[in-house]
C-alpha cells in the first residue's frame, strides 16, 4: 500500500492515491468496466482528460478557489459533548459537510466533474438523482459554469419531491421523470446511461457517487477525499492525535470514501461504514448492500449488490432516499474484503432516534442519511467506552427531511407530542398519514452517500 502524506486544506495538489484501483479501474476483484462497447471511447476520453487535469496547476487552483469561495471550505469540525453523553463516554467530533453550499458533500464532486466537462469541450451534463441532492448539486454547478443540464429522476420521486424538482428547474435544469423498470434511482441511472450513449458527442455524465464504471469510482473519490484530508489535519491540530474510529453512512458510498481515504494508511484508526438497515437486514426491506448482499455486476462495475437467485437486482428500502440504493461503490467492497473497513447496518428506527437526539442536544438537524452514522457512533461508543475519540462525517443537513421526520414522530398538527430522544420510534403512522417508508422514499439527501 502506498502511504499518503498528510495534506493541508487548500494545498495545490491532489494527494497521492492509495495503491488502488489498478490502471484499468480494479479494486481487487471489484470495479472495472461492465458497459456497452459504445461507452468505452467516452470512458477512455474521460479517464485520459481527468488524469491530465488532476496534475494541472491551473485546474487545481480553480478547483481550490471554488471550494473555498463557492462551497465554503474548509468545513469545520464540531465537538458534540451533549450528544456524546449517549455514546458510552466516547467523545464525538462531527465533520460538518452539512454546512457546504447546497447542504451536503455532493457539491465537492460536481464542481470537479463540471470543470472536467468544460475541459473536454462538452456543453451538456446529465445526472441521475434518487430524490434530489445530487441533482440539485449538478444543476447548481451547471448554472455556475454555463452548461446545459438534464437530470433523470424516478417518476415517483419527482411527484413526492416536487420542491426539489422546482429547485432544479429554478437553476435551469431539465428534469426528466423515469418511468421504466422499478421507477427508482437505479432506473434513473439506467436512463442516464442510455442518454449518454446516445449523446456522448456533446454530453458528459456527472455521476453522483463512487460507483459506476472506471474512472468514476476513483475520480469521485479524488474529488471527495478533501473531507478526510481536512478532517485528519483538523483532528491532529486540535487533539494532537488521530481519532480511534471514523464513521460515515454508506449508500453508494461517496461521503464515506471521502472521509475514509486520508485515514486508510493509519492502521490504528477503525473505519466504520453504516448501511441502511431499513426494517432490519433479516427482513426484505433494507438497503444494506455489503451486510446483506453478494458480489455481482450492476451499473458498470463489480461490487456487492442486492440480487435474487437469477441475478436480478432487488429493490432496496430505507427511510433515507440517499441510502436507498441496491449497489455500493467497488472500493467499499474491496475495503470490506481486505478487512480495512467494517460495515454495519443501522435500522430506520435507530437512525431516527439518533436524528432526534442530535436535534435536541446540539441544535443541529442532520440529514437522515448522516443520522445513520450518528447511530453507529452511539453503538461504537458503548463498545469502546470512555476516552475513545470518534470522528463522524455529518454528510448533509436535514432541512429536506423535516417532512419525513414530522411524519415519523407524528408531529405536524399533533401539538402535544414530544419528539424527544426517548420517543418510541416504532410507533405506527397516524391514520391517513403516509407511511414512514412512503414518506421517506422521496426524500432528498446525501443520496447514494
Amino acid at each position, binding site marked *: 500500500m502506498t502511504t499518503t502524506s498528510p495534506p493541508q486544506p487548500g494545498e495545490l495538489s491532489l494527494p497521492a492515491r492509495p495503491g488502488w484501483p489498478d490502471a*484499468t479501474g480494479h479494486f481487487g476483484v471489484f470495479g*472495472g*468496466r*461492465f*458497459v*456497452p*462497447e*459504445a461507452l*468505452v*471511447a*467516452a470512458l477512455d476520453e474521460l479517464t485520459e482528460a481527468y488524469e491530465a487535469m488532476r496534475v494541472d496547476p491551473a485546474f487545481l487552483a480553480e478547483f481550490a478557489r471554488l471550494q473555498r469561495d463557492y462551497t465554503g471550505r474548509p468545513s469545520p469540525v464540531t465537538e458534540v459533548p451533549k450528544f456524546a453523553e449517549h455514546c458510552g463516554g466516547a467523545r464525538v467530533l462531527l465533520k460538518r459537510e452539512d454546512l457546504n453550499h447546497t447542504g451536503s458533500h455532493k457539491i465537492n464532486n460536481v464542481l470537479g466533474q463540471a470543470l472536467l466537462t468544460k475541459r473536454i469541450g462538452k456543453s451538456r451534463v446529465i445526472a441521475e438523482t434518487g430524490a434530489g441532492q445530487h441533482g440539485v448539486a449538478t444543476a447548481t454547478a451547471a448554472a455556475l459554469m454555463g452548461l446545459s443540464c438534464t437530470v433523470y429522476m424516478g417518476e415517483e420521486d419527482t411527484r413526492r419531491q416536487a420542491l426539489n424538482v422546482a429547485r432544479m428547474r429554478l437553476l435551469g435544469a431539465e428534469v426528466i421523470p423515469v418511468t*421504466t*423498470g*422499478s421507477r427508482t434511482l*437505479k*432506473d434513473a441511472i*439506467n436512463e442516464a*446511461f*442510455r442518454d449518454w*450513449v*446516445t449523446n*456522448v*458527442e456533446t454530453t458528459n455524465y456527472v455521476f453522483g457517487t463512487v460507483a459506476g464504471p472506471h474512472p468514476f469510482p476513483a475520480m469521485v473519490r479524488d474529488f471527495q477525499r478533501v473531507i478526510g484530508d481536512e478532517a485528519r489535519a483538523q483532528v491532529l491540530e486540535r487533539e494532537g492525535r488521530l481519532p480511534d474510529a471514523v464513521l460515515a453512512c454508506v449508500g453508494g458510498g461517496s461521503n464515506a470514501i471521502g472521509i475514509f481515504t486520508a485515514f486508510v494508511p493509519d492502521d490504528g484508526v477503525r473505519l466504520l461504514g453504516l448501511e441502511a438497515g431499513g426494517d432490519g437486514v433479516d427482513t426484505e426491506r433494507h438497503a444494506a448492500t455489503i451486510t446483506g448482499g453478494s458480489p*455481482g*455486476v*450492476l*451499473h*458498470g462495475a463489480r461490487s456487492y449488490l442486492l*440480487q435474487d*437467485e*437469477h*441475478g*436480478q*437486482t432487488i429493490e432496496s428500502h430505507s427511510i433515507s432516499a440517499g441510502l436507498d440504493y441496491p449497489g455500493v461503490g467497488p472500493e467499499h467492497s474491496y475495503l470490506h474484503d481486505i478487512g480495512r473497513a467494517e460495515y454495519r447496518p443501522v435500522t430506520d428506527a435507530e437512525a431516527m432516534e439518533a436524528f432526534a437526539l442530535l436535534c435536541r442536544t446540539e441544535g443541529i438537524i442532520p440529514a437522515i442519511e448522516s443520522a445513520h452514522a450518528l447511530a453507529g457512533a452511539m453503538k461504537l461508543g458503548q463498545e469502546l467506552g470512555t476516552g475513545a475519540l470518534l470522528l463522524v462525517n455529518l454528510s448533509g443537513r436535514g432541512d429536506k427531511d423535516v417532512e419525513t421526520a414530522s411524519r415519523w414522530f407524528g408531529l405536524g398538527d399533533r401539538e402535544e407530542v414530544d419528539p424527544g430522544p426517548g420517543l418510541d420510534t416504532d410507533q405506527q403512522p397516524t391514520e391517513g398519514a403516509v407511511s414512514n417508508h412512503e414518506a421517506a422514499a422521496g426524500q432528498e439527501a446525501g443520496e447514494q452517500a
Partner: protein
Amino acid sequence: MSALAQRIEAAKAQGRAALIAYLPVGYPDVDGSIAAMVAAVEAGADVIEVGVPYSDPGMDGPVIQEAVDVAVRAGVGMRDVLRAVGAVADAGAVPVVMSYWNPIERYGVDRFAADLAAAGGAGAITPDLIPDEAEEWIAASDRAGLDRVFLVAPSSTDARLAATAAASRGFVYAASTMGVTGTRATVGDAAEVLVARTRQAAPDRHVCVGLGVSNGDQAAEVAAFADGVIVGSAYVRELLEGRGAAGVRALTEDLAGGVRRAGARA
C-alpha cells in the same frame, strides 16, 4: 467451425445475408416466447437470439425493457432460457443466448457454459461484457466449445475493433448507431462504415448489424453490406401489440424477403 459461422456461411452460399431474430424468454410468458421463437424459425430466421430477462437492461430501449420487465417480475430464469434454447435447436435454427453479464455470473460462468452447450446453444452475446473484462468467459466458452459474440460501436477505435473481433467467435455484433435498441426510420451510413472498418481490422470475421432494423426494406439495405441482419425491437413490438406468433411469422417473412432482395454481396 463455429455453429454461428457455419450458418452464416450457408446463407452466404445462397447469396444472401443471415437473418437473426431476438426474442426475450418469458414474454408474454415462457411458453408464449418459445412459440414465437419457433414461429420465427419456421418462417425463415437462421439464428435466434434467446434473450435472458434482466432487471437493468442498460443497452435496451423502452420496447424491449417493457417486455423483459414482465419476464423479470414472473421470475423467469436460466432454466427457462435453456428450455427455449433447446426448442430453437429442435426447430432447426441456431440458438445463441443474449444476456447481460450478471445473470450469467450469478448462475455460474462454467455451469452456464456447460449447460448451454448441453442444451444445444451455439454461444452467447454479451452486450455489457467487453473483452477487457471477459477472461473468465473466454476460458469457459473455450472449454465448452461455445461461440462468444462481443459488440463493436461507431465510437470504437481501430485498435479496439481489432481486439474485440479477435476475441469474438461466431460473428462480431456491429451496433449500427450510438444509442440503445429500438426501431428507427433509417439505419444510417454509420453502420456501413463500421462494418467496413471492422472487416479491415479483422478480415476473417463475420460482421452482423443490429440496432434499428424493423422491416424488409431496411433488412435489404443492411444485407447489402453485412453478413447478417439482427432484428429485435420490431419482434418484441409484435408481441407487445398482441399479434403473437402470427405477427412474428409475418414479420419474419418480410425480413427474410429483405435479406434475399439484397443479392450477393460483391
